[in-house]
């Protein structure tokens, strides 16, 4: 499963990254390191791109990029806080 399939409102933990090495590096630099938990906030009206909360900030990525991020679906919203490596920066539960 990749981030692309994560439903809106869902939290996921980043696993492996695939795709072009330079793009992988940039994705990690932006906060998508393996183990980081992220939250899908919403999709744009036409379904793409998708807005993600990562390390406490918001980033829009297209489905094509979301597909490069393999994820394990984390616990449902509410139990995800602290799953990330950054204390309190994983996924504010009530955003």
């Amino acid at each position, binding site marked *: 499963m990749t981030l692309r399939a994560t439903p809106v409102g869902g939290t996921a933990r980043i696993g492996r990254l695939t795709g072009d090495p330079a793009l992988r590096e940039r994705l990690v630099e932006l906060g998508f390191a393996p183990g980081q938990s992220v939250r899908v906030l919403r999709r744009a009206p036409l379904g793409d791109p998708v807005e993600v909360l990562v390390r406490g900030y918001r980033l*829009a990525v297209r489905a094509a990029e979301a597909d490069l991020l393999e994820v394990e679906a984390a616990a449902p919203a509410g139990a995800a806080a602290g799953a990330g490596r950054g204390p*309190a920066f994983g996924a504010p539960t009530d955003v």
Partner: protein
Amino acid sequence: MKDCGHGEGGSTAAGEPPPPGGRLRRAALAGNPNVGKSSLFNRLTGLHQKVTNYPGVTVERKSGRMETPAGPLEVVDLPGSYSLSPHTVDEAVVRDEIRGLAGSPPPDLLVLVLDASNLSRNLFFALQLLDTGIPAVAALNCVDAAAAEGISVDAGALSRLLGIPVVPTCGRTGEGVEALRAAVAAGGAPGSPPAPAWLPEVEAAAAALAAPLAERFGGVEEARRRLPEILGSEGLFQELAASLPEDLADRARRERNSLAARGVDAATATAEARYRMVDAVVAEVVRAPLASLSWRERLDRVLTHRVSGTLILLGLFTLVFQALFAWSGPLMDGVGALFGLLGDGVAAAVPEGLLREFLVDGLVAGFEGVVVFVPQIAILFVFIEVMDDSGYLARAAFLLDRLMGKAGLPGRAFLPLVSGFACAIPGIMAARTIKDPRDRMATIFTVPFMSCSARLPVYTMVVGALFSEGRVFGFLATGTVIMISMYLLGIAAGLLSAGLLRRTVLRGGRSPLLLELPGYRWPQPRSVLLEVGRRTWQFVSRAGPVIVVLTVVLWVLAAFPREVDLDRDYDALRAEAAAAAGVAPDAPPEAWTEGLRAEMVRIDDMEGAERSARSWAGRIGRTMEPVLAPLGFDWKIGIGIVASFAAREVFVSTLAVVYAAGDAGEEDEALLSRIRSDVDPGTGRPVFRPLVGISLLVFFVLAMQCMSTLAVVRRETGGWKWPLLMLGWMTGLAYVGSLLVYQVGSALGF
């Protein structure tokens, strides 16, 4: 770990290298995008700023002077960047500047601008920068916004952990700026961030390569110390490999590839390790609530909502449109009136003759042609700056990305395209907000297809002359339908051209979208006005000279040769008319009767028409007639088209001269009726049939008839390739389009 030595001779020691005699000490503001860097820069330097371009790229280099007790300091505002492994032109510029590869040595001091509400990603770049060993101070910016979200950052603890002074600031209110100024003046400290923990696999690979690469790094120990970071980063490694002889580069690649077999992603290992350091720092200095429903998120829910977000976006762009067309009207009229007065003043001061004509019709008209666009451009940039500063522009790009993607354009292209409806020039300049070069080129290419306000007078005239009556479906005025169709034709042709371009010259997938949606902020009037003033001046200084020169050239074409054989002796006609009215031939105009005055105007118009037909512009029009005839255009329209290459709206005033309608506007009844009643002497049919009108409209929608736009495209793209391609493609498309309309229409009997 210092890695400023990737460049030639870059060896900024941890101490304080005194700048060479004569050069000002230089401080560089560095940080992520959207962290308030520019407003801090404005605060630090006041109005003492200079904006230039980095050589070879369209990235702007903003620098300014800051006075300190220890003497003046040059301050550079670097473009926002996420990493020293560059992914965009902006980021490459930042890396070059920091590493001293840009022709000047590395800065003497870094001012790390950190967004307190988003510290973890900000610290990632800050730690990279500290690793260069350049002395630094940190500005912990937007502390108030962070506090509003319940996030508190312990500046003292951060300063201790990083080993540099940390000053809480707020660029918006100016809070902390004096303290920051003092810290900058004091010179900062080299920093001592926590040591990174590299993966053992990476350390092993570094150890294996340390001996063969010792020469490159000036010693085995130094190589062993620096290699782990480089091996774990795709960007840094490719940079290193490119600088090595082929055999060593191969050896390094093999060693690095073996990391994958051991389960390590060599492309990302360094970034992951650095984030582990970031997390250790963040854990000690940041206190944040676990749950919060901030007003920003509530606002986002509305502004990016499927229904309300789309409606607000449409509403905002309608507002922009309205402002550009309606609200700028009085200002543009004001500019016109001002230049009218200037022209009158010149006419009063200079005796009648060639010099006066040159000054009034050439020079003053040329300057008016520049300044008349200033209101629209300034208004447009106010909107752009406010939307950008507030964070809304990123939301608009988010909403529109998919739609624009169908034409191979990024979501951000929307704003330049909307600007294009006012004038292509600010639209092309606004395309600078698009960082990917191919996306940006495709956008620049599309903008001139949008029906700009200079086309509007032509549309109005043609529609007024030929389609002022009639209804479509019984209730829509034919004129309205034709106007809207022309706008749609421009949009369709632009998007299709962009799509075609992305499949040919700019082939390749879309660049990935990694669009930060920054927190909402109140735009600051001071920054907005500074930026609007700068952009407007850029337009005047870039497009201005071209417009003035071209207006003068076209005046020459229309006004020369002076001595021509005219069919009629107009002075004799004037004398006759005076005699018929019972007025002395040399009587001043004040003594003329009402009827004589009208007759004199008629004679002047006739003379003007004949002179323009015999001028160089007229001859060019006649020479072009065989080429234009298949489109349904005669030589009179030909003259208008030649003239319209200075500015499209000149077409109307040129036709007015050719049709001897005096100084007419686009809705002037005298001009319209003369155009309607003009008959082709060969066929006896009216020259301006509805079919010719449509053909002419299609030509004006599609053709690249704006030398100023081409000049700006040349400046923005750094060469003639793109402007020439644009000229050829658009004008070719216009010719084929009009040809199709006229030939198919004629065959169908219209």
